[in-house]
């Protein structure tokens, strides 16, 4: 089911013309109204008129997270304050907060982008939708909320937390669509099971739109099975807009990128050169219709690839593959690059191990070590030590052969690993010289 069929199925040639038109307009608005862009364009020796084709985009400078921090709070706004309808901001826990403004038009288009994903799940008017993303400065809650309203759903603004009440509402109010982070979806599923429900049977849930953190195939399967739903991935980031930049149609792998509003590139994060479709690299986004905070070649630090093959759903927008990690989540362990999502993938394939995990990276002497805390699956038979030792050995061997890293495995008691109501904290890096997660990103 389409929400805006004309745009979602626009022929590629026509779409590229529209993209060029909108990109030129964006660049002009950036250059004329935002000092930062005027200086950046001048520094790179380009003016908006140099964009004669989409291929010329590579001549234009990148924008990075630090530029947004430096612009705190309003220096990247391209419209006067009387046109700004809403502000969202990052938490700022890792530095100065990044502030993103939205005009009324920006908010309307955001709602439409998210609504497309709801229609992809074959839901809309008549659907009761529960939004269990946090509401507030974080874009998850309000983004999904407005998307639900625009799609014609009846929206329950549950926000995150109070899991038992969430479950009660899902049951009592006949909720068919749940929107939250994957880790919270799993917590809801597990809590409902602990409360004595079989969510797949006892609830009316049909689909879930889950995003804001990466999740492995195993975790997707587990959530879909336990809740008895179709799992729909959503991609977005607050700098660009929020959830809805790309959404999963369920017909093929990956997520349709809203190409009439955003232009994706994949670059090599080391050379910064654009890569051909299909190759993995850092996702770079140029906004095409954003009015308040347009961004030119914003480096998302998310690792993905573009899937250009036509999709059987009929949408012409290219897809991005599921995000496998962030350039700055990447752990460098004894010289080997590892994404937490890859570790999660391996865990999901080993029977007897539950999906929750926590990775601790530290230093012993001069060498890095990785400790992985996991819980055993509820049906694992554990009265003999050798069963538990065997489980540890199997997981260690899988990690070694798949990721070439040696990991100390610790099986811990249930509920030792923190279940998250928002984004799960999966990695703790104790290495002194970094303090936080080591990475290649800036």
């Amino acid at each position, binding site marked *: 089911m389409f929400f805006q069929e004309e745009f979602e199925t626009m022929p590629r040639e026509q779409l590229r013309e529209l993209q060029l038109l909108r990109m030129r307009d964006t660049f002009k608005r950036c250059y004329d109204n935002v000092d930062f862009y005027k200086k950046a364009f001048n520094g790179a020796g380009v003016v908006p008129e140099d964009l004669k084709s989409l291929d010329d985009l590579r001549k234009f400078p990148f924008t990075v997270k630090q530029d947004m921090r430096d612009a705190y709070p309003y220096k990247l706004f391209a419209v006067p304050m009387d046109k700004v309808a809403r502000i969202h901001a990052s938490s700022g826990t890792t530095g100065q907060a990044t502030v993103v403004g939205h005009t009324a038009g920006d908010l309307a288009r955001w709602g439409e982008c998210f609504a497309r994903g709801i229609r992809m799940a074959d839901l809309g008017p008549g659907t009761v939708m529960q939004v269990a993303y946090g509401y507030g400065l974080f874009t998850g809650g309000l983004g999904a909320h407005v998307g639900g309203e625009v799609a014609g759903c009846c929206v329950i603004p549950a926000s995150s937390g109070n899991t038992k009440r969430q479950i009660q509402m899902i049951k009592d109010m006949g909720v068919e669509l749940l929107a939250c982070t994957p880790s919270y979806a799993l917590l809801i599923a597990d809590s409902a099971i602990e409360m004595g429900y079989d969510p797949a049977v006892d609830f009316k849930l049909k689909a879930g739109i889950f995003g804001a953190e990466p999740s492995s195939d195993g975790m997707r399967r587990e959530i879909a099975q336990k809740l008895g739903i179709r799992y729909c991935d959503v991609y977005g980031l607050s700098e660009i807009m929020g959830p809805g930049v790309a959404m999963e149609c369920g017909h093929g792998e990956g997520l349709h990128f809203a190409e009439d509003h955003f232009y994706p590139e994949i670059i090599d994060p080391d050379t910064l050169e654009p890569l051909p479709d299909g190759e993995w690299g850092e996702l770079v986004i140029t906004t095409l219709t954003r009015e308040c905070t347009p961004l030119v070649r914003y480096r998302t630090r998310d690792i993905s690839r573009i899937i250009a093959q036509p999709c059987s759903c009929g949408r012409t927008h290219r897809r991005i593959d599921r995000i496998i990690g962030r350039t700055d989540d990447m752990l460098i362990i004894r010289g080997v690059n590892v994404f937490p999502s890859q570790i999660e993938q391996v865990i999901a394939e080993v029977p007897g191990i539950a999906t929750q995990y926590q990775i601790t990276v530290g230093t012993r002497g001069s060498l890095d070590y990785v400790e992985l805390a996991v*819980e*055993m699956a509820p049906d694992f*038979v*554990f*009265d*003999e*030590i*050798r069963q*538990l*030792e065997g489980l540890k050995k199997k997981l260690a061997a899988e990690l070694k052969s798949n990721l070439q890293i040696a990991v100390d495995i*610790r*099986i*811990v*008691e*249930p*509920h*030792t690993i923190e279940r998250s109501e928002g984004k799960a904290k999966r990695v703790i890096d104790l290495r002194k010289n970094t303090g936080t997660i080591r990475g290649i990103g800036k």
Partner: protein
Amino acid sequence: MIKQLTVFLTNEKGRLAAACRVLADAGINLRSLNVADTADFGVARIICDNPDDALQALQHAGYRAAITDVVAVCVPDVLGGLADLLAFMDTLDVNIEYGYCFVNGGGNAIDILKVDGGADVEERLIEAGYVCPKAEDVYNF
């Protein structure tokens, strides 16, 4: 077969005490406790007066607990009693995963054995003249 309560515990100070407190609060009386420990975790194997209630209490408190079927055999509390039993088990061609004993000074010991691969071990022990006590008798030993 009798029911052994099996509890998974992280090898950290106070974990066993906390689990035992849960059982005490639930009115469970322990007959025997055996802990198999490794560097990072331990498995506590418990014979108690009410394994089903004990399981529920522990699970409710968030512990990873299970019921495991084990064999109980009465052995005279004399020199070589256990050695004779194990020599006989050897002839049955079954593997003993683990075992432990408890005595109460009444002339008999109860040996608890987790046996791999012999559903009929109990019958064969009885055929050979061993006494396998009733579950209730072990729980209330």
